[in-house]
């Protein structure tokens, strides 16, 4: 007898006895509460999900060309990733970031960058998601929409909020937890009031499950811990659950355990619906049926035999389409080495289009629903996920747990577990620990996968020049206002950030000002000084 990757024991086969009594007769329909089978009640053979491929490279102008190209090729949404400094809430002229500028995403730090990044993109028709710090992603988009005369209430897309896990996985911003939670809530609040079509809270379980190598159960349990935290923050501020819950979405990972990943997505929808209805009293059906987007797992891809990654991406994408997700991004075959090349962008996009246009799998909603095995696995996962959510919450306030390194411990254990599974062979990865071939034979797609992007050093000078040519009085006034707002707990910081960016303050400067207002140093690394004196006096 085997088990799923999360450790759920599996039987040789499943039968009527393995699902609840009367289950087959009583299974809720797609489009009905509890939405395990998705929010739609009508099948949509074409256009059922948004195709996105991760983009961003060099400066904003080059990335803008990439985005426009992908839209021309049929992409309905974009997903912009920032380079290391941008994702780390820092500027390209910071001494620590010099060799990373523009290599793993776009370098964007000020208003002008966002105007260039989104130039000529139909902001009222394309859904804009980003892997950027939520505060700057939102404010940059607002400035770009204003410039293009697109009313912000028409904007669609999403903001990743990850205050609990951002320091342990992916890109640390080195801001205190109270400020991280406040910024998440401030941006959600701003969007609730001004941007009704925009998903102001994308719970991104993808990024921490990738860098922490957690199982499906851990991934979704940690996601729900954060969802409950941020929902409670919004309720504390007096917002009605139905005013913001419809704008929560979840971005999940999809690894190689085919059925478990499908069951995970169905279980997540069910748990979300019950949480919103039973605990938070939501009534609007849009609050109960959560939008799920997905990236296929980058960590499941290998540097060895990169062509195998195309196969992995196709299988994962098929699992996602069978689960009925709202948006898909396929991690590129050259992921082990770099952000996607134009060649791998095209492969990712075409994989989605082949599934959509040639296989017929989208003609029926939740085509695997009612399978004894899948329904049993879905229920099992739901129970395990909720047990873990309760276990974690029993340990205390998640914000305190985050500060004490509790979550970091979960991620480190998971990393070690994964490394042991690869070493012992409990987990087979073709080309990595089984069926390896000698490096001299491993040539197919190798060259394109290993192509490097040079750091965009000219960009550093460009930003230095912009900083030198700004009106210093306006800058000081704007940063000073931001500082005083940050010190007053009732102010929403989005408005002051919009003004600061209008005065050409950069992401690094805004972050430094906020950090100072919370009693920290302007620069966490102690290498740069504030652009003007007296912001904090």
């Amino acid at each position, binding site marked *: 007898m085997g088990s799923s990757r999360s450790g759920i024991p599996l039987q040789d086969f499943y039968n009527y006895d393995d699902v609840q009594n009367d289950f087959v007769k009583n299974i809720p329909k797609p489009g009905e509460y509890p939405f395990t089978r998705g929010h739609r009640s009508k099948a949509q053979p074409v256009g059922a999900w948004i195709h996105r491929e991760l983009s961003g490279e060099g400066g904003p102008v080059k990335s803008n060309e990439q985005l426009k190209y992908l839209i021309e090729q049929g992409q309905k949404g974009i997903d912009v990733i920032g380079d*290391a*400094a941008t994702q*780390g809430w*820092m500027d390209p002229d910071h*001494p*620590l*970031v*010099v*060799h*990373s500028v523009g*290599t*793993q995403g776009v370098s964007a730090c000020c208003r002008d960058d966002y105007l260039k990044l989104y130039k000529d993109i139909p902001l009222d028709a394309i859904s804009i998601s980003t892997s950027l710090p939520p505060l700057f992603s939102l404010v940059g988009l607002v400035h770009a929409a204003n410039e293009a005369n697109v009313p912000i209430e028409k904007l669609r897309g999403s903001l990743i909020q990850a205050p609990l896990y951002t320091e342990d996985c*992916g*890109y*640390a911003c080195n801001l205190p937890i109270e400020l991280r939670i406040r910024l998440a809530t401030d941006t959600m609040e701003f969007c609730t009031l001004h941007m009704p079509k925009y998903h102001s809270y994308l719970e991104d379980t993808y990024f921490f499950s990738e*860098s922490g*190598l957690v199982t499906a159960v851990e991934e979704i349990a940690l996601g729900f811990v954060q969802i409950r935290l941020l929902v409670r923050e919004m309720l504390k501020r007096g917002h009605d659950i139905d005013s913001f819950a419809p704008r929560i979405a979840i971005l999940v990972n999809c690894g190689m355990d085919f059925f478990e990943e499908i069951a995970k997505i169905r279980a997540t929808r069910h748990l979300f619906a019950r949480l919103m209805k039973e605990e938070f009293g939501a009534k609007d059906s849009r609050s109960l049926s959560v939008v799920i987007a997905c990236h296929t797992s980058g960590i499941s891809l*290998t*540097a*060895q035999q990169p062509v195998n990654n195309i196969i992995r991406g196709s299988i994962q994408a098929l699992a996602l389409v069978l689960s009925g997700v709202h948006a898909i991004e396929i991690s590129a075959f050259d992921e*082990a*080495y*770099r952000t996607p090349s134009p060649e791998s962008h095209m492969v990712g996009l075409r994989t989605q289009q082949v599934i959509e246009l040639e296989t017929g799998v989208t003609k029926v909603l939740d085509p695997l629903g009612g399978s004894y095995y899948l329904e049993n696995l879905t229920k099992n996962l739901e129970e395990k996920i909720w047990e873990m959510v309760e276990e974690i919450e029993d340990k205390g306030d998640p914000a305190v747990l985050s500060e004490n390194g509790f979550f970091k411990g979960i991620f*480190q254990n998971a*990393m*070690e577990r994964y*490394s042991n599974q690869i*070493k012992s062979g409990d987990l087979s990865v073709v080309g*990595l620990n089984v069926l*390896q071939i000698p*490096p001299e034979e491993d040539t197919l797609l190798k060259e394109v996968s*290993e192509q*490097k*992007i040079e*750091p965009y050093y000219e960009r550093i000078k460009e930003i230095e020049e912009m900083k030198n040519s700004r009106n210093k009085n306006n800058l000081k006034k704007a940063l000073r206002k931001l500082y005083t707002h940050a010190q007053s707990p009732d102010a929403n910081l989005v408005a002051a950030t919009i003004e600061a960016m209008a005065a050409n303050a950069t992401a690094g400067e805004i972050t430094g000002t906020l950090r100072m207002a919370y009693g920290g140093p302007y620069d966490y*690394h102690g290498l740069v000084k504030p652009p003007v004196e007296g912001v904090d006096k």
Partner: protein
Amino acid sequence: MKYKVLIGILGMDQHEVGSVIIAKMLRDAGFEVIYIGRFNTPSSVLRSAIAEDVDVIGLSCHSWEYLHFVPGLIEQLQKEAADIGLVVGGSVITPKDGQSLLKMGVDAVFGPDSTSDVIIERMTAICSRRGQMD
């Protein structure tokens, strides 16, 4: 006596999985590990390595920044005449780049296919060589 290893990551490379796993593995194998984590420059690595008197520096590389930082670190090690080994490991190091690192003076390069036995054996050999070079 225990061999002493410093493990760190350079620049804005934030992928910590590899370094955490390697640090644990080396500790389990009896090494003393000084873990300095993320956000380092060649100078900060060298400062910690000298202050802690380590036998070998291990850099975890999951972004291309290492290509630009490692030559600088080798230069600084030579300038200080520091008798400290240097090994580099990570998924983004291609076989070709690995070769040029070895030529540059890096003592060993590890990739995703290096087994823990090989890593421990090479690290032990590099540490035991220390002090016997003059």
